[in-house]
């Protein structure tokens, strides 16, 4: 019973790590606290946390005031206390599109243009704008789109493999073990893809007044890493056990 439970838990963990990986928004992230301009037409700067969470298909940009409520100049004379807590998502899944912001442009370019019309806070625009540029080696949009696309493809492939592995573990243990290892291979491949497909030589860094947003691998990434390792070990152990002790 305990053994069964353990198996179920391990397998569920692997599955969860795949799903959370595919759907997760935190493959890379960055956050800083900074003074920053906030909106056009005013003089006031705000203090806020600017954050960025990159998933396979989109980037989430957050702006959270510290404190959340701040007095922001509305015009020279009128001040308001505003709640500064924004979270905007920009998708690049999966079209690159033509250069520019028109109907044939990539999705993120169009969403960025929409955001400009909506007038989202400036820091959010600045961050998002980085993903709309596409020339020479400044191609973060392209990099993340491509990497995300392939990582996404590969990771989704891991899902059926994992399912098969589960079904097989009720049938032929040895094959189940192999399948778990294959699952992990897919997971690792997606990680490798994610971390290697980059145009340009420089990491994404977005300067703000008090600091620079440097991205680093986030929880989704590490979850997939751990899921992959667990899956590999689990598969190897099962396969080994099956070959050496047939019962």
């Amino acid at each position: 019973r305990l053994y069964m439970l353990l198996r179920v838990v391990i397998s569920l963990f692997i599955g969860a790590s795949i799903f959370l990986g595919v759907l997760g928004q935190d493959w890379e992230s960055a956050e800083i606290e900074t003074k920053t301009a906030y909106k056009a037409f005013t003089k006031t700067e705000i203090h806020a946390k600017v954050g960025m969470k990159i998933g396979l298909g989109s980037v989430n940009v957050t702006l959270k005031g510290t404190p959340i409520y701040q007095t922001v100049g509305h015009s020279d004379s009128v001040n308001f206390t505003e709640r500064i807590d924004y979270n905007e998502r920009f998708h690049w899944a999966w079209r690159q599109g033509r250069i520019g912001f028109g109907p044939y442009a990539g999705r993120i370019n169009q969403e960025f243009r929409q955001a400009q019309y909506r007038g989202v806070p400036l820091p959010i625009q600045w961050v998002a704008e980085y993903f709309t540029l596409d020339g020479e080696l400044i191609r973060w949009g392209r990099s993340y789109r491509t990497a995300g696309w392939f990582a996404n493809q590969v990771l989704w492939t891991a899902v059926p493999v994992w399912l098969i592995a589960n079904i097989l573990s009720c049938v032929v243990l040895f094959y189940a073990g192999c399948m778990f290892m294959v699952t992990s291979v897919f997971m690792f491949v997606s990680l490798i893809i994610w971390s290697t497909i980059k145009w340009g030589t420089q990491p994404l860094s977005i300067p703000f007044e008090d600091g620079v947003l440097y991205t680093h691998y986030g929880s989704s990434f590490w979850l997939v890493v751990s899921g992959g390792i667990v899956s590999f070990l689990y598969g190897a152990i099962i396969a080994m056990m099956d070959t050496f002790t047939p019962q």
Partner: protein
Amino acid sequence: FNDILNRNRRMDGWYNNLDHPQWGSPGERMIRRSTNGYSNGINKPIEDGLPNPHTLSRLLMRGESGIPSVTGKSVFLAFFGQHVGDDMIDSRRNACPSEYINIEIEENKESNNHILPMYRSKFITGSGSSVNSPRMLVNEATSWLDGSVIYGNSHSWSEHLRSFERGRLKEEDGHPGYPSFNRNEIPLYNPTIDLKRPPKTRNPEELLSFGNPRGNENPFLMTIEIIWFRWHNHLAEKIAVQNPDWSDQQIFDKARKWTIATYQNIAFYEWLPEIIGTSPPPYREYNKFMLPSVSVEFSIAAMRLGHSLVPSGVVLRQPDCSPIDPLPEDYLASAGEPALRLCNTYWQLQDALLDLGIEGIVLGMTSQNAEEEDAVVVDDLAGFLYGPLKRTRMDLEAMTIQRGRDAGLQRYNEVRKTYDLPPITDFSQLNPSLPNEVIARLRNAYNNDTNKLELYVAGMMEDRSNASNVLFYKIILEQFQRTRDGDRLWFENAQNGLFNASELQEIRQTTMRDIIAATTTFNRSLFQPNVFNTAGSRCASITVRKDMFSKSCTPNTGIDFFYGYWGKYAGIVVLLLLFPFVSYFVMCMIAWKRQYDLAKAKKIATQKVTRRKSSSQNEAEIESEDGAVFSAFEVEGQDKSRRVVVMLEGTCIKLFSSAGRELRKICFSHFKKSFLFMSRNKRKDLIVIRVPKEYDVVLRFNDSLERVEAIKNVQEFMQHNGVNVDVFEMDESALKEEAVTKEARQALLETFLRQTFAEALNIDDAVEQNSKAKYRHKTMEVADCELTQMELAETMGMKPDSLFVTQMFQLADTDHSGYLSFREFADLIILLMNGSPEQKAKMLFDMYDVDHSGEINREEGRNMIKSFLEMAGANLGPDEVSAAVSTIFKEAGIGENKDSLTLEDFTYVLLKDHREAFESSELSMPGITKSLKKKMNHQAHHASPMIRRQDTYGTSSEEVNGTEIRQRVTSNSDTKEGKSNGKVFSDATVSHEEKTWFARTWKYLKRNVENYRRHIFCMVIFYGITIALLVERATLHAYGAQHIGIRRVTEWGIIISRASAAAISFHFRSILLTMSRNLIATCRETLLKNLIPFDSAVAFHKQIAYVALVETIFHVLGHASNFYHFCVHPLPVLACLFPKIFVDDGSDLPKSLTWWFFETITGLTGVLLLLTISIIYVFAMQYSRRFCFRAFWITHHLYTVLYILTILHGSLGIVQAPVFHFYLVVPVVIFLIDKMITISRSKVQITVIKAEALPSGVLNLVFKRPVAFDYQSGQWVRIASLSLGTNEYHPFTLTSAPHERYLSLHIRSVGPWTSNLRNLYQTAVEHQGKLPNLYLDGPFGEGHQDWYKYEVSVLVGAGIGVTPFASILKDIVNRTSTKKGSHIPCKKIYFIWVTRTQRHFEWLTDIIRELEETAGGDLVSTHIYITQFANKYDLRTTMLYICERYFQKVANKSMFTGLKAITHFGRPQFEAFLDSLQTKHKEVRTLGVFSCGPPGLTNGVEDACRNLNKLNKARFNHFYENF
């Protein structure tokens, strides 16, 4: 801090206007002051009736250069103008999809360098598509005068220019005061080729990073950019010093604010008046409703008047005004003394600037007069502008004119009207100072119609003496005013609070000279106060003319993108074509190797036996001291020979097989003459020993030495026997011709037999007639031909020493010559055929009266019975034989006491009940049946007794008796059937052909349509979907997706390749479903089977594969053509089509062919796919499956690779978002689940309980039945042997019945696997070892489970198709005999077994026998049809047939098969047969007919059923399965 406000002048120009946040931002539409001038009013460039732009440029815009500006405009003004223009305008992006507006160079028409390539400009998406919204260009720059050329026009761009230290812009390391090289690789235009590595584009790192994407265009523009760059840093430094506690951001903001303000001031109040000759009106206030957008009149025409100011070169000066002469090394490459030549410095000299500084250039620019502001443009622009790789030298003026037409600029006069200027009515009004001939040219070009005059052409030629009448000035001023007044952040706008009054004053007083002084090392006093005019310059202006230069502009070097690729193209095609050939070659090698190994293995095995044999032979030799033994090869025919051991012993030459079996024996007791032939050339290793009546002994030896030895032996032997030998020597070829080999002999024998039969039966054999004519000379031989006993046995397919053969031979060989002559043989046959019953009986009696005592004693009787049984392959114990003999004796009325039968007794026994049978027994012969067939066809369905009488050639006695269909002597023969009065017509016939070709074809077609309606239904659906997909993709790319533009680039290629890709996707997905065996096995049990012919899955699989192959070929051809197009179209075109993989960097250079094929995922996987497919297909060929099945099976699993590659193949989504995986998902899931079921089942080891080697190489395996293994009779399984590789599965039909405890298979050895399996189990059995276990997968396939639902069922099996019935029959017996069977309706089953020769399925007879022996046996009535007989005279079959008829009663079963079943010869006549069933089973309304075998058979049954069903009598439901 007010400075923060300045930050709100965003880099991208957004949020300047409060109500229209996007106003002035990049990507906004331009505006048009006048109406549009498109020739169709919407989007068509104006062309009709207008002169060629290049011609215009050549005729009107060239002329004497080096005329200095009369108003004293400086070169600095010209290049500053370029700077300002770049700040406000960027319309040089191309429209997507690319539209060409190439300019024809008329004078070059003959040469192939006659095109100036041009594309239409990017326009607002949606405009220009209908009448109310004419096409409008896009401006990619901010319309504001906001220094976006300094800082870039996006936030992130600007951040790449910053150093983030003390508010400065980033400087190149080691070169303070210069921007860094473009290491961040911001998206600068980079149109030039690398001179060092043509035609590669230049490394972007060689460019300097500016805010202006085109900042590197020429060194003079770069100089101005650098001045502004330094100015920012200068201010930043100042601010930083003043405010040590400020952050970088604050400093940057403030420095930028000041830079922009001074820039605005200088551009507007210093530069603008100089260029338009008048001062703009002073600033009043911010006008929020003023639209700043750039007008096309301004951007496409007026602002380009600066072209005329640009000189061919700039003289660089030292602080003392003297020209830098000679120019430093770094400049020399692109220069001529003493000036820096423009045409040779486009996009160059970055390094030189950094090393040599900009001061000399600045001083040169400020002190040199610009070109006169007229229509004349220097060659550097008009003829030697940089250009794309296709044409490296362009004509700026022609391009500008064309651009105006592209933008739909209104004509000059119209525009004048919109700007409140009077239109001109005559060309001479345009500019009085123009020479007459120029006016004449102009007049000529525009057909003397001033209303046709184009804006740019006329604008350039305008009379500029009165500034207020100059259209271009008006346009420019209007634009600048709007830009200023609409700018909320304009430095003078007091409301924005950017600057206070004193600061404003400071800004207003900052002149360009101040800035130059602050940013260069040259003394301020070197520069005149207004650097835009040379007036007051300390250095005298130097006029630069093109003849001054020591170097002329480098000429045009257009490259052909595809140049040098044809070889590669051919190479790639050859490579791709090589794939199938190489894999074919490899496949053949493997097949060949396997055949070779097999042969070797066989040889080794035989050698072992030979060795064993020969050692025993040696012992024999010692015993017969006069005998000699040697080994040789007996040549049996053209390329057939066998290894034999020749023994000369006594009077006989004996040939043994290497296994020690006696093959031939030739005894010389009867004759004293023979011939010996020897070959005398080639290897001299052949001898032929000719003896009368027999075929020659043709022996080949390993070498001539061995032969010498052998000949010696033979001659001695002959001498010894007193045989007279004639020895001949002849050439080997002649010898071969001469020798009568076994093959030749057999051909002869066949004729012999035919003729014998023909004579015996009075048949006029047409074939025989033919051959008679052909081989007339052979007939003689036939008459001479004599049969040995060995040959007789062989023709009968029996052992030569069997009693039957021996007795028969001796009986027939009346002259005891040891040979049967033609006559003797014919007599025998005639007797058997036509003799009276008594004669026949006597013959048999004589045969078995071995001692010629005239009586058959018990021993002889036993031998007789045994011999019959032996013939039938049946086995009875001695007791049973004795019992049978006793029965005979008893029947003869002879008691236990008497021991022998006389002839009378014997005849009595035989003829007592069966006289008629003996009389009527004849042979069914093709010749005879033909004449009767027509009648039969007419009357078949009411087969009258009369006809039947006539037809009963091979019918058994019951016809005559009118009782039973199968006669039995056994007590159970008088069952209920016996009482039924029906008769079954079970005759054999030979099918006939339709008369005409048409009728045949029609019948064939009709039959096929009827038989394959399910197939046709599925095909229609399947190919319907395929065609729908094809058409959908094709129309999409032909019509629907025009806006993507790929169609225009690739012509037909894209339609073909995409359409076929869709079909490929569909086919490759469907192919998986055809191999989901468990699914199919399950589905075929459901109602779906009426719609889908599941049994044809494999055939369908192959068909899909082949069609997919054709589609693949189309796909590849399509893309091969596409790739060609992709390689010859310039980059901008491709960048439009494939934004995912290309970016238009201005360089024009497309990717190479090899890049497409080998460096894109799509291309590379495509190539790999082709390789994979080649392997899969080649190894799936019939040949390969026949000879190297393993290799087929292994390579076939590359399908996984194929799928993975295909997914990767599309994953890049170059043309469209990948779709293949959508196609694939469902089938893959189904297939995987299916596979999993298989795996789960097949990983269980199955214990084999019994393995038995049956005759004819059949292995019977009996093994444990796994738990929960449910199957129906007739289904098949796949097995793998643990000892032969656990992955190699082979399909076999189960021959056990579902009720049985164990499963059994009958496996016939045909190839390596089955042979190995047989060996494996044989050795295991021999050594009493453990029987190796199996893996089992299944069951698959349809069970004929409905037979028991009918009262009467007919089962028809033919050829291999009979295997399922083995199981079914057992099942039947079980069900009917057990209690649970008592309530099933089935009352009678007819099993019809059609086989070429019964020998092939001997094991089935065992099963049938078993069946007959069980209680339920009565239920089944079996008819065996041996078809071979009808076309081949198999003596054995004939003999058996005769014996069968005679002796069935005696042994209580068929002598032939050992069965109670009746054997027929010929093909069954289903219609007559089924019809007679109707009569026999009158009370039965519906009969089931189940057939299984080749299509020919099932079709026949189907026809018969359909014909009978028309008669409205009983109904026949036919179910069939094709094997």
